[in-house]
């Protein structure tokens, strides 16, 4: 490899942080191959194409559609299999794409298309009246139970059954089209993808050699090589994955491009050796554990990491004092036997970050020590071995307490019956309380985990940041409440006494909508009606019973 090529590779690599090099259309085949990670999805797509199916890769910009398309195309061509592809859908008109697709069909060739969500809908709309593309149109626009696009991620068995029925009704044509939605890919948490990607990028960075004449005078130790060593280390990788998982669970999504940018930045700060030392930065500033939290780093993933979990900002009572005193802790320090005592709080923060990454303790143990119980309970929701019935009851109780914080918590009915709380006021503003006339039995509610549609044969791990609290035998359109971190946290806060008036308004709205939807499923009549009133001013819960036939109140003191 001559010097020119080496510089090009370095430039390409460093620019991955800025995202420009990550755009697959602009990368050379060589460079693209250097950062390519083989995935099951890729081999599945190849398999589908070889079986003569058409494949659409859709998602958001940066999800890796074009990269995947190019790899698959190269692979197919290498094996001597012909196919038609369209990777630049945004530059073509819908008519041009459909024509190309038709030609592929006429020639008996499979068609592989990479396209963003928005133009995909436009394309399907355009194909509306063409019988040849009826399956394609229906895949996007048919009702949610049948639509390929909304059924890519499933929640209930019934949803799968419905989807399968609609596929059978369409015959073999339905099976001839696969639409892989890369937005749902677990980019941050799929170890089989993240770890090899780190290895690839570390490999490139490790070959970055310094040109002596360009070295700054202060440079005695290379941070890039230190970062390479650290990110090659299994312990560091494991702890980094734990942070990424936490970020993903909190609802932050990242594209492959975002993830690459993060790793490149953690290795190099996105600049070459000469620039590393500018602006009075020291070695620690250029170390991977501080670069991950560098406020100058741009991008949503960096913001998400900074927002979700910075070990430097969390108190870990088990080790903080030892770190401050320079005492021995259970960590294998990269490149050093021991670390020196921090001189100030900034240095302590930096050391705490480093300790998190280089600690010999399990990530789970470390996180459990510093994060709240609510966080652990939220994570438990994703553990399918949990007692889901108990989790449903917990959530029902929390929703009831959200509206009626002064209800008697010993009353089991608050766990077994979800009151359909409502308030009534014509002006905007806080209400004096909430009343409930009807309830929905917790027995008829289920917790659903998102999972990939079996049609896609486990081709990829999907992003999981929520579960669904829905009615039994749930189908799209049925009442459901998305339990994501924000909702779970709000419910937990309410159970701990946070008043409804200071909860985020959209949380209240989501809950209201869920209860309203459930109202459609319950009777609107009982001969004797019981109205439960959660009085927020007097901080109590009162019941009023009304006999319809006798037109009189019942009970009372």
């Amino acid at each position, binding site marked *: 490899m001559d010097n020119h090529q080496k510089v090009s590779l370095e430039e390409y690599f460093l620019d991955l942080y800025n995202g420009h090099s990550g755009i697959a259309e602009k990368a050379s085949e060589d460079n693209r191959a250097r950062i390519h990670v083989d995935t099951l999805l890729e081999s599945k797509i190849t398999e589908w194409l070889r079986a003569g199916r058409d494949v659409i890769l859709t*998602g*958001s*910009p940066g999800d890796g559609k074009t990269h995947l398309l190019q790899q698959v195309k190269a692979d197919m061509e290498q094996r001597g299999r012909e196919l038609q592809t369209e990777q630049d859908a945004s530059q073509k008109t819908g008519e041009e794409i459909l024509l190309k697709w038709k030609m592929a069909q006429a020639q008996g060739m499979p068609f592989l298309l990479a396209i*963003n*969500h*928005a*133009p995909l*809908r436009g394309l399907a709309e355009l194909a509306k009246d063409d019988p040849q593309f009826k399956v394609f149109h229906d895949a996007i*626009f048919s009702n949610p139970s049948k639509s390929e696009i909304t059924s890519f991620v499933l929640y209930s068995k019934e949803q799968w059954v419905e989807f399968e029925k609609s596929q059978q009704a369409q015959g073999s044509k339905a099976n001839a089209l696969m639409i892989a939605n890369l*937005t749902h890919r677990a980019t941050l948490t799929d170890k089989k993808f993240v770890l090899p990607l780190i290895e690839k990028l570390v490999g490139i960075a490790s070959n970055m050699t310094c040109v002596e004449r360009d070295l700054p005078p202060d440079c005695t130790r290379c941070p890039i090589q230190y970062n390479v060593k650290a990110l090659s280390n299994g312990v560091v990788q494991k702890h980094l994955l734990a942070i990424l998982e936490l970020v993903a669970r909190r609802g932050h999504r990242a594209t492959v491009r975002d993830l690459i940018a993060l790793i490149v930045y953690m290795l190099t700060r996105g600049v070459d050796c000469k620039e590393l030392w500018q602006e009075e930065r020291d070695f620690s500033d250029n170390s991977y554990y501080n670069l991950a939290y560098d406020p100058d780093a741009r991008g949503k993933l960096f913001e998400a990491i900074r927002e979700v979990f910075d070990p430097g900002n969390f108190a870990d009572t088990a080790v903080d004092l030892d770190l401050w005193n320079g005492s021995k802790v259970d960590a294998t320090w990269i490149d050093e036997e021991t670390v020196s005592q921090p001189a100030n709080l900034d240095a302590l923060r930096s050391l705490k970050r480093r300790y998190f990454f280089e600690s010999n303790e399990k990530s789970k143990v470390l996180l459990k020590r510093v994060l709240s119980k609510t966080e652990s309970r939220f994570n438990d929701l994703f553990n399918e071995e949990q007692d889901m019935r108990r989790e449903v009851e917990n959530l029902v109780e929390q929703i009831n307490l959200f509206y009626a914080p002064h209800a008697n918590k010993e009353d089991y009915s608050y766990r077994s019956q979800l009151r*359909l709380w*409502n*308030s*009534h*006021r*014509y*002006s*905007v503003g806080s*209400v*004096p*309380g909430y*009343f*409930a*006339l*009807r309830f929905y039995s917790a027995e008829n509610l289920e917790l659903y985990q998102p999972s990939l549609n079996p049609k896609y044969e486990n081709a990829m791990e999907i992003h999981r940041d929520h579960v669904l609290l829905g009615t039994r035998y749930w189908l799209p*359109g049925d009442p459901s409440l998305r339990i994501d971190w924000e909702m779970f946290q709000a419910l937990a806060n309410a159970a701990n006494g946070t008043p409804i008036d200071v909860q985020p*308004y*959209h949380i209240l*709205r*989501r809950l209201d*909508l869920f209860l*309203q*939807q459930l*109202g*459609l499923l*319950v009777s*609107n*009549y009982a001969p004797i*009606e019981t*109205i439960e*009133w959660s*009085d927020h*001013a*007097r901080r*109590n819960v*009162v019941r*009023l019973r*009304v006999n*319809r*036939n*006798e*037109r*009189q*109140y019942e009970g*009372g*003191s």
Partner: protein
Amino acid sequence: MHKLDFDFRKEFFEDIVKSKLGYTPWIVAAPSHMANGLFREIVGGYCNNEVQHRVVNAKTKPVPDVNDHRFYKKYIELSKQQKTALKFMQDNSAQRQILSQTFRADKTVFTGVGTSSYTLSHAQHTTNDNHDRDFGRWLTHVLQQGEKRPAYKLLYSLLTQGVTRSADVPPMSDALSLMTLPLMQWDIEPKQRKYDYDLPANLTYTTSGSFISPLITAIRIAFDRLAENDHDSAMRNGKLDALRRMTTLACFSFYLHLINIGEPPSRKLPLLLYLERNSRTIKRSSQESYRLVRQSTDRFLYNEIRDKVVELDAHGQFGRWDNQFDIQRHIQETINWHRAKLKVDCQTFYDGYRTTTNNEIDAIAHTFTDMVGMAFSETPATVARALGVKIGLLTRGDRRENKAYELHPDLLEVLVRATIPVGEEPWSIQKLALYWYDQFGILFGGLGDENQKLAEWEIAPIDVNELKRNEQSLAQQLELSGYAQSYADGVVLVSVKR
């Protein structure tokens, strides 16, 4: 007519708004007032249920003692059920609090039943309170027009629910109606309100049954779409939600109609939404768009008052109105001001306007327009402002003239449900933006030519990046409320779950 019989308030404001608008916006009203006025007209009368009022009004005892002469006389005539219910409420203060707090939630309940508007849900809760200033009558007329009138029918059906199941009338399905069931007076016919003026010309419709005014047509369409979207849930357990949405839309319609009274039918005042809190230029331009309200209502009053002065001058009823001598005589002697200070103020204003115009009629028309603001505690612009704040259309807290348009999530929900027809494919945010601008004058981004539209009103241009963020903010609000789904490339699809 004798001297001083010429009442300024009546001649130069009340008669004008009655004949031109069909309602009389000179006192501040709350949405619960509007609900009471509208529902009363929908069901064809009011109840003024004093039995219920004894329980709701925290200052009175439900069961009167003999010294409570006025109510005691009525009390002994009440049915056994009502007496038992009053006794129950007297003995159970915690249960009484439920009624008291829920029905007073809007803080529009006072000592007298006829001056109170409850946070109501049934025909039996309506009162004779006239804070809505006949807007309910006007709007009911809009909703009643034609054969197919889903909003009117839905409201009627919800407000007249019966006690038990029957083939014809659905049973009460909401907690508020049931709470008051034992206190209701089914054997008394609702009373009709009397109106001393006819419906205005703005409600004229064509032979095909559609309104001539594009704005009234837009209001009617919005109600019908909202009713169709809400029908199924309202007939199950969503009655209160449906009533709230209808009321919010009624208030929004009131605001919209009132602020556009000074504009020709083809034009609507822009309502620039300020949704992204750090958008300096949007805030400024939104405030400017709000300030047009005052100009529009003043323009309306000025034109009408001027016409009236010209008419008086032509008829010569009190002599001429086109010269300084006669006008000063009218100010000093002809007009009954009721308060001496107003006479002095009027003379001062008139002297001021005379220095800027040679036309005496223009000067006195401007003067009288200003005097409306002095003679009444509220003007159309301030009535509109107060209601706009209470439905979450205008920002709270800012100074009177510095209000900007926002969109409380409740109002946003209402507008979306009043926009997208049942059974239609999801709308793009651009389609929503176009529709809202055409129908209501609402601007929030998504069109691309917002600055051009604002320039027509001499409103300063907005930073396009801020406008983009404003649009995204609306999309995010819609998504958080379950009314939209965002896709890549900024595509947002808006739909209504039924």
